[in-house]
């Protein structure tokens, strides 16, 4: 592989990896605080993409209850992105209230919470389908305003063009990761969250409103899912109501690779899977989707706690 192609694939991998990282961060936040995988995360990802699309004034097709409807205002992409992700965050809070809280109150088996979050995922995906149909929606071409379509990193005879959207995604990811790291390590919110993640009962005895931090975590987590969904949607297109399910499974690979509940793990895992996928040779590109799962499978067998995870403690 010559250097030009290598660089190009490397930058592609970074861009895909940043979306995986943003998405996986949300996944891992909920895991770190509740010890449960929220399977509705992928559905919220899809929903975020639809919200952002609608806020930009995108029209819905002929199927579904909202056929041909559109929001009267057309917001610029950056504003729609933040509003859309916030709406996704609120849906995440709703999911917590409906599918997680009642089970927590009853001290149910964590397995049941996994199932109820799966139920929420099925419901959300089908509500989307009911409202806007199963078509593919493409973000408006002027999504990124007057930015050039592609930026060339090479020289005139050795061109390495990178799409602007890929750079936007990468920049957003770096900003989000820095912001979240600051939030968790240096703010009161972050300290309290860490305490709840460590031991919910003790922290509530110490006067931390556990419930409030769980809700906040769900909001942040789902905000990140919505953001990731909108970014993927703007870079490719929204591929229907089940768009996020496959992404959600890949997100699982990312967080297990990095170590469940680990924030640096989710970021590193995201970039690793993104880069590995980018370097799958063209002849085998059909198998690209299996690569992440193969890595996941091997990782589980060799080091189940992941790269940054804590060793699982055996309770006797």
């Amino acid at each position, binding site marked *: 592989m010559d250097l030009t192609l290598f660089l190009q694939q490397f930058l592609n991998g970074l861009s895909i990896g940043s979306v995986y990282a943003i998405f996986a961060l949300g996944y891992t936040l909920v895991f770190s605080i509740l010890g*449960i*995988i929220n399977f509705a995360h992928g559905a919220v990802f899809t929903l975020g993409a639809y919200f952002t699309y609608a806020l930009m004034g995108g029209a819905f097709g002929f199927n579904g209850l909202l056929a041909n409807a559109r929001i009267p205002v057309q917001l610029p992409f950056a504003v729609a992105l933040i509003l859309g992700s916030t709406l996704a965050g609120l849906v995440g809070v709703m999911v917590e209230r*409906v*599918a997680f809280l*009642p*089970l927590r109150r*009853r001290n*149910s*088996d*964590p*397995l*049941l*919470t*996994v*199932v*109820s979050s*799966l*139920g*929420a*995922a*099925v*419901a*959300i*995906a*089908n*509500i989307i*389908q*009911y409202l806007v149909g199963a078509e593919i929606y493409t973000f408006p071409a002027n999504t990124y305003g007057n930015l050039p379509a592609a930026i060339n990193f090479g020289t005139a005879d050795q061109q390495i063009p990178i799409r602007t959207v890929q750079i936007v995604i990468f920049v957003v990811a770096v900003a989000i990761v820095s912001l979240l790291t600051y939030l968790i390590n240096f703010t009161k919110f972050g300290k309290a969250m860490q305490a709840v993640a460590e031991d919910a009962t003790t922290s509530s005895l110490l006067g931390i409103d556990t419930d409030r931090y769980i809700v906040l975590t769900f909001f942040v987590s789902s905000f990140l899912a919505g953001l990731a969904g909108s970014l993927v949607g703007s870079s490719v297109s929204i591929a229907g109501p089940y768009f996020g*399910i496959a992404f959600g*499974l890949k997100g*699982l*690979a990312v967080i*297990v690779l990095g170590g*469940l509940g680990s924030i640096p793990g989710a970021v590193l895992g995201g970039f690793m899977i993104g880069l590995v996928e980018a370097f799958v040779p063209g002849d085998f590109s*059909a*198998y690209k*989707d*299996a690569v992440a*799962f*193969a890595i*996941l*499978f091997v990782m*589980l*067998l060799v080091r*189940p706690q992941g790269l940054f995870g804590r060793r*699982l403690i*055996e309770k*006797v």
Partner: protein
Amino acid sequence: MGTFFTTYGFLIVSMLLGAMLGLSLYLPLMTGQLSLASPGFYALGGYIAAILSTTVFQQTGGLFPLPLLLVEMIIAGAVSGLLGILVGVPALRLRGIYLAIATIAFVEILRVLSLNLDITGGAVGIFGIPQPFGTPIDYLWIVLPLLLVSMAILYRLERIRVGRAFAAIRADELAADAIGINPTFYKVLAFTLGAILAGVVGAVSAHFLNTWNARQGTFDAGIIYLTSVLIGGSRTFVGSVLGGMVFTALPEVLRGMATIQGLPVWLAQFLRDGRLIIFGLLIVVGTIFFPQGLVTPELLKRWRKGDRTSV
């Protein structure tokens, strides 16, 4: 009665197949292992039957001979069982959510392979799988005995040494190990039995559905069967059988309800197009209000004692 069976034949047979898939998920759960691998073995069994019947056992005209179907079922069960041991031995060192994730990865790898290999027909899949029966309801001849045999085996299994060992491991693996039960052996055994059952059911389903592709046996299917087992009741096989039937029938029942005369238009439309929303919400509500599932061992005991206790 005759028209009833011809109208609902497809649904009835699907329900019994769903019950068996529920059982295939229940088996590893007997040792406390949350495995979502069943759809993978189901897909594998289906591909084995589809490939064998359209290439190796090719027939010209007439119905597909039953003995050949049985041969396919045995091969599908054997191959699934072997793969079950191969995957199970390393994977069952994992517990809880980690095992669930490993089995999801296994199913996804199988799905991508079946989408891209020539022998599985790629994305299109395999068409025109020959039929051993003339009508869907005739499949009861093979599906009903299969279900009864599986239920009889499970009934026995819950009462003999092996089943007791399963229950002990489920209750406390370390304690079971300490009193001389080999957890690895029994966990792989339960996992493999589930794999065999799923493979055999897949072989029958491929003929029943006439076509087989990568959409069969995906992660979604795993969710539906996990739901049916946990909401039906995961402490006794009866719960899995009932859950499997109910959750296979539910979408169709809702679709049927949409055609009831006199319903408001919006409600009929919702029952028809939004039935999977109801399905999803039922899963959430079910796990909250029936954490033990609908059928529990206590409930069965009460039924068995019957009038004596109710007086």
